């Protein structure tokens, strides 16, 4: 099974880095969509079949936490796996994101962290897919 992935980050360079890293890890990628803020991310979710959302927190227009809240409030996306990749360092905020069902990866990240986290949250590549 190939994963359709949505990468949401206001930095084009960071979106490219995340995509490059995901390709390096050998994860089976299908279509990859990109968005520069939470609202664009929600629009992309509404228009495409997406298996995994990778999202930053601090973004203009709509931040990542608000996007996650809107996804969780919509039955269509309530169970979509979410990985937050952010510079956020506050355990208080990170725990709040975890309680919303998101996994957290701290920037700067390693390919192994990306691979392991996505494998855990999707079951892809661990023999259970």
């Amino acid at each position, binding site marked *: 099974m190939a994963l359709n992935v949505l990468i949401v980050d*206001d*930095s*084009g*360079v*960071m979106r*490219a*880095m995340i995509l*490059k890293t995901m390709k390096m890890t050998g994860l089976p990628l299908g279509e990859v969509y990109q968005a520069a803020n939470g609202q664009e991310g929600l629009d992309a979710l509404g228009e495409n079949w997406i298996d995994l959302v990778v999202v930053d927190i*601090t973004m*203009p227009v709509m931040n990542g936490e608000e996007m996650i809240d809107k996804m969780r409030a919509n039955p269509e996306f309530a169970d979509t796996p979410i990985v937050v990749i*952010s*510079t*956020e*360092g*506050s*355990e*208080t*905020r990170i725990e709040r994101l975890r309680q919303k069902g998101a996994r957290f990866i701290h*920037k*700067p*990240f*390693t390919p192994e962290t990306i691979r392991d986290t996505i494998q855990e949250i999707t079951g892809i590549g661990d023999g259970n897919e």
Partner: protein
Amino acid sequence: MSDRIKTIVAKESVQTLEKLAFIFATPEDEDIEPEVGETVDVSIRFSGPFSGSMLILYPEGDLDELAANMLGLDDEDTIAGEQKLDALRETINIVCGNVLPVIGGKEAVFDIAAPQIIEAPSDRPDVAGGVKVQLELDEGMCFIYISFDGEIPEVPAQ
């Protein structure tokens, strides 16, 4: 206290550059003044238990390598000017995001504003009274400043 913060900023900056872009930086203790026109400048505001600004003066000659390595580009690939600035904005965002929890503690909640590229030295935030770190890169010196709106905060024991 400023020595402790200087150590934290230097350590987190070196680690960020290495992990983010495979750039190996060496802290320089001898005080050097930045040359006008030789750096690209970016700043970021933060607020929370304490507030202030971080400013990075990044050597222009090293900016191509920063962006290319972050993007995974080859030497012959062309890098757009906006990509270089985006790479620098993301770098200060990550440095600042890693420094603040070390200074303020892991439970502290900070809001970090969007990084701003500074067009002219006169537009730089006032970092007088703050902490300055210098990192030697391949082509020049990178200057990193962190300043606080009030007194320099106490750093919790690690």
